[in-house]
């Protein structure tokens, strides 16, 4: 009983809290309401830690070969087993997180920035801006996207940076389309007109009044897209583009283990593939959670 009174007092005291405290309270509320989202966030946190601290957390050197320990099944020493060169798969999967996440993050950041910018301009100004941007987006969409990415990497050169550019380019249409549609429905909203009357120039109206309102739907898109970007970058590596062999990367590891699948050493491909799948899954769940966190209408 006392406890409840104290909580009530705390909320009324906090009626004029700092923005940060309010945001944290809201985050706790959303996560408490929704355990699946909480799990997705926890998983995402684990991936982030692996990405940042992977090399220090890894029990073995991911590049150290040892012919005597080749193709050992999972055990208490080698949790995910060892590969054909005797390297510890768990360490390799762990260390690869930063490269796979890094490629996907960079690609998504690029396509988010460029795609949302172009899409928002197209949705706001309409006319020839819209036609130009929509044609660009249609042109990209006209290709089978993965084949387009392969072609881009082949043309630009076989490097990690070019995998990022290719992934960014093929994702561009998603962001353009979402931003364009979301801006379009808002460009004549009353609050936009009110912002003009308050002395905001056109670009300011777009950037400061419309853009923050399209973030929730775009955020969901980013998260869904993140999983697909990871899959795409890993896929390009899987077919031998971008990342070079000794470097640990999920796609390459799946590819390298493929031939051992038949001979019974399933773990060589299975674990990197499973972690890749888990990452994609995590981002898809995260999408809905992020929308709730960011939407002020859900703020209580």
């Amino acid at each position, binding site marked *: 009983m006392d406890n409840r009174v104290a909580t009530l007092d705390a909320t009324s005291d906090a009626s004029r809290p700092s923005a940060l405290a309010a945001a944290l309270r809201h985050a706790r509320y959303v996560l408490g309401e929704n355990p699946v989202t909480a799990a997705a966030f926890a998983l995402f946190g684990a991936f982030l830690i692996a990405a940042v601290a992977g090399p220090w957390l890894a029990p073995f050197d991911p590049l150290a070969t040892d012919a005597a320990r080749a193709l050992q099944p999972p055990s208490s020493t080698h949790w995910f087993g060892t590969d054909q060169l005797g390297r510890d798969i768990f360490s390799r999967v762990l260390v690869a997180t930063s490269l796979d996440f890094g490629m996907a993050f960079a690609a998504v950041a690029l396509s988010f920035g460029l795609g949302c910018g172009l899409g928002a301009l197209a949705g706001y100004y309409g006319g020839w801006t819209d036609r130009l941007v929509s044609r660009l987006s249609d042109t990209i969409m006209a290709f089978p996207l993965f084949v387009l990415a392969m072609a881009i990497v082949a043309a630009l050169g076989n490097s990690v940076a070019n995998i990022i550019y290719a992934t960014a380019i093929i994702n561009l249409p998603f962001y353009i389309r979402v931003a364009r549609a979301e801006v379009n429905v808002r460009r004549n909203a009353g609050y936009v007109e009110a912002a003009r009357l308050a002395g905001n120039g056109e670009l300011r109206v777009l950037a400061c009044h419309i853009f*923050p309102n399209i973030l929730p739907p775009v955020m969901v898109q980013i998260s869904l897209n993140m999983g697909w970007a990871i899959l795409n970058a890993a896929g390009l590596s899987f077919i031998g583009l971008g990342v070079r062999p000794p470097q640990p990367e999920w796609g390459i590891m799946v590819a390298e283990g493929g031939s051992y699948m038949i001979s019974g050493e399933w773990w060589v491909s299975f674990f990197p593939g499973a972690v890749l799948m888990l990452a994609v899954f995590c981002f898809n769940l995260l999408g809905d959670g992020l929308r709730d966190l960011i939407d002020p*209408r859900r703020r209580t």
Partner: protein
Amino acid sequence: MTASSTLLAVEGVRKLFPLGRGGVLDRLRGRRVPLLHAVDGVDFRIGAGESVGLVGESGCGKSTLVRLITRTLDPTEGAIRFDGEDLARIPARQFASAPQRPGIQMVFQDPTDSLNPRHTSRDAIAEPLRRLAGLSGRALAERVEEAAAQVQLPEALLGRYPHQLSGGQKARVGIARAIALRPRLLVLDEPTAALDVSVQAVILHLLADLKTRLGMSYLFVSHDLDVVRLLCDRVLVMYLGRIVEEGPAGELFALPRHPYTRALLSAIPGQAGAGAQRIRLEGDPVSPVDPDPKRCRFLGRCPEGEAACASASPVLLECGPGHRAACLRLPPPGGAG
């Protein structure tokens, strides 16, 4: 009229919306894109401190005229003189930085739609003060609180988001935002249409009170004639993009000269005097797309239409002191009243 203290003079303003872009082929063949005449040659004045009502059925171009006057839309032709200066020369896209921007503010029809869902009441009211009056910090906070007090918005609500406010509270935020800059002309586009009936009266009284206290001019758009009678000195009646009658509120309500005005007035329940029975308008208004310039637009619905109305478009003519109407059947000016 009160020409010496004219604040706003709208002169021959038209807004024609092209319907579709017109393909290249059409343009080569010299085919014209159809034009929707939303506002089609409107003239009127608003004096300093005067409140003018604008009435007419929905779709007649009231909101378009409002957007032209608040300078968020460019007129096809015509002049909008504010304090003698023609604002129509400044493109709407650049008007945000014009020196006249603080002088013309607006209260919107839908209080929910007109508040940014990500801004608190305080942000909403502060925005024009910050951008147009260059205020910040303590001075800004004081002006926000002053505006909130003027609309009787409790200070505790300043930290709330629109979804945490009731309709009436949102309406107050919208009004506070519009008056915060102390504009000389306040345009209100059906400010109570989206509110509950019980809240409407409260907000209307607030608006009437603010007008006398702050000495602003009002352009008050409404399709509710009772509201206009309560609040306005003068009334403009609009039909399909044109003003068909204008006059002092008292006289216009007592002695409407245009058949459309008479029909509008007869539709008010419990309309005293007149004893007239309700005039029903038959049929639909003619299309606003490329209307025949040589024909009265009201013909077809007009209970008094005659053959002459099909071949001449009426213009506004004096029919009393400050009272003008556009109908061919009115006796010519100077004739026996």
